């Protein structure tokens, strides 16, 4: 598989999967995201977007989480074929 450059999580579509490469957020948000399981190599899958288009629902570490675009755009992921 050729390695594409990582993209922001916010660009993934429902159904897409990816692996966390880097959390770019700073301060509190960064710490919170790390604690919730956004560590290097963690697998995630985007479930759906909210009816109004934001936030997104994803599955990471076996549980469901929602993130606003603000936060999901600071997480770089490597898309992975499902």
């Amino acid at each position, binding site marked *: 598989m050729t390695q594409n450059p990582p993209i922001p999580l916010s660009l993934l579509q429902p159904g897409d999967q990816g692996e966390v490469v880097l*959390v770019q*957020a700073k301060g*509190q*948000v*960064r*710490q*919170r*995201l*790390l*604690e*919730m*399981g956004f*560590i*290097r190599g*963690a697998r995630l899958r985007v*479930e*759906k*977007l*909210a*009816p*109004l*288009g*934001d*936030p997104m*629902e994803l599955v990471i*570490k*076996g*549980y*469901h*989480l*929602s*993130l*606003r675009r*603000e*936060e999901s755009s600071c997480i770089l992921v490597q898309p992975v074929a499902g």
Partner: protein
Amino acid sequence: MTLTVALAGNPNCGKTTLFNALTGARHHVGNWPGVTVERRSGTFEHGGTTMEVVDLPGTYSLAARSEDERVAVHFLASPEVDLVLNVLDASNLERNLYLSTQLLELGKPVAFVLNMVDDAENRGVRIDVPALELLLGGPIIPTVGNREQGIDELKELLGKMARGESNRCRRITVDYGHDIEGELAKLQTEICRDEQLEASMPPRWLALQLLENNVEAKRVVGESHASEAITQQLARSFAFLEPHLGADGATLVAERRYGFAHGLVKEVASAPDDKKSPTARLDALLTHRLLGIPIFIGVLALMYSLSFILGKIPQDWIADAFKALSTFASARLPAGELTSLLVDGVIPGLSAVIVFVPVIMILMGCIAFLEDTGYMARAAFIMDRLMHVMGLHGKSFIPLIMGSGCNVPAIQAARTIESPQDRLITMLVTPLVSCSARLQVYIVIAGTFFSPFKAALAIIAMHFLGLGLAVLMGRLLRSALFSGPSSPFVMELPPYRLPMLKATLIHMWEKGSIFLTRAGTTIFAGATLIWFLSRYPGIANREWTLEYQQQRQAIVALNLPVAEAEDRLKAAQLAHESRIVNTSLAARLGQKVEPILRPILDPDHKRAEAWKDVIALTAGFVAKEIVVSTMAVIHQASEEPKEGERLSPLQVALRDGSGLTPLTALAFMVFTLIYTPCIGTIAMIRREAGSWRWASFTVAYGLVLGWGLAWATVTLGRAMGFA
């Protein structure tokens, strides 16, 4: 001897259910000192040992960033705690174990509860409990909290640990790898130079927090005399680790903790099967792109009807009972100060407090139910986009909407919002949402000065104005009070669960009784104060009282038909009260304050009686609907229309005698909407925000904003040629 057990765990791990199962009804709800986080503690006995269980706020971590986390860490590190009981959600083990790694580092003995094992089994996850016990170094009891399975075993274990009969706790900590451990050791050496610092918390824990760049840990170190040495060592550690391991301290520590958790889960638990969970099937419907919003509106409508339509029934009973009591007392007791204190002060005051209880209990019960089922998180998920535009959180939506029924429980409903900033802003803007009490004022005023169609339009406009202002003020307060970025929206969508009826009932009872004890006294005091202001000194005037009694006797002596006699008695009573109120302290205040309100209520300075509006508005502090009954007294005209007439005598008096014009009447409505929350709302804000500061701020900005908008209404209206 008593053993203190701290109950720690993630949100949604079933901790509170377990707490209820352990302590039964024997528990107490209070606040943690200095903060508005609820503190739940209770006791149970086992084999002659009393155990105190303290339910910590649910947290994902102990990083001490949020109020909840600070409370949890502070308590866990205190000598008060003998034993930590870590509740783990068996169906979500890996993330739950992240917190466990931190709990183990705090150095207290830790026992574990593997809760909701049935959920895990349904997902095909089987957990090898003895293996997990070995790897975590503490005893583990599997439970199903909402069916009370495993509770006896848990009590027995805690009892044995208390009596020192079980010593199954070994010290297990995460191994952070050679490089990080080396730096941790160096940091610990520096930390131990300050004995006080060393004693305040485990040095290894502090060192880890420093590596994670934790603000609170840095603050603690900043106060130490070894601060400089520690900071220098930390800089050296960062300089070594970051290039060496390719990431910053926070990432490295989190990675190792998750590494530990992941390894454990792989060792002891089977992988979940792929079949669609009931939660996924429900979510396909409940957060559906098109159906999600209509379903949510349906849920909201149901909740609203339950609280404010069903809740109105017992509310009416209470109001009627107090009214009957008051009528009974005024008929039996001689007219005078004491009777007035009882009939017009104490009884309405008590009524003003108790009348809220049914609504609060029902609404808080509904909210607890939504939270416990997991739907609350979905509601926030669905509405967050809209609320974010307003500078608020998805969870702010429900309090704002419920505010249109009554602001008091709506402010309490803001408790579901985790972020203190979002919660405070929601509480501060909720009073702008027009409640059903204000509607009664609009109906009287609009009905007097407008045609039925225009009146309906004006009333609807008030509600939209209130919501619009809430949005605007939300944005404004966010940028004015909190300069930093809004708190992150990282919200778990927990699996759907059916809550136990018992838990919901306990919750409702708690909310009702907390309201009575904490907010009730403030409301009662406020109501009594307003009684005093609007009755003195006239009520103490013996001659007036005597005159009134003579009038009554004279009417009775006439031997009129019952209906006519009653009418005359009522008229005499109204005249008597009117005389008292119109010469009261509130009236004097009204005359003093009237010039300030002149631009909005009397722009042409033609009204002789504009000060009377001030009395009514002052009385409205107690509850907005009292504005109407006070006006009836002031203008000596009944608020109940005679048969076959559209307008009540009060409305006729307002139209013909008050000097208000349609335009100033509209300004009066605008002012009534905004000028101040009622005493119940103020008491609730005080309680929920933890200080008088925010409660008084709400009153102050309401007065200013209300005046400004009423003035704008008059000025613009006149510019457009209305009168």
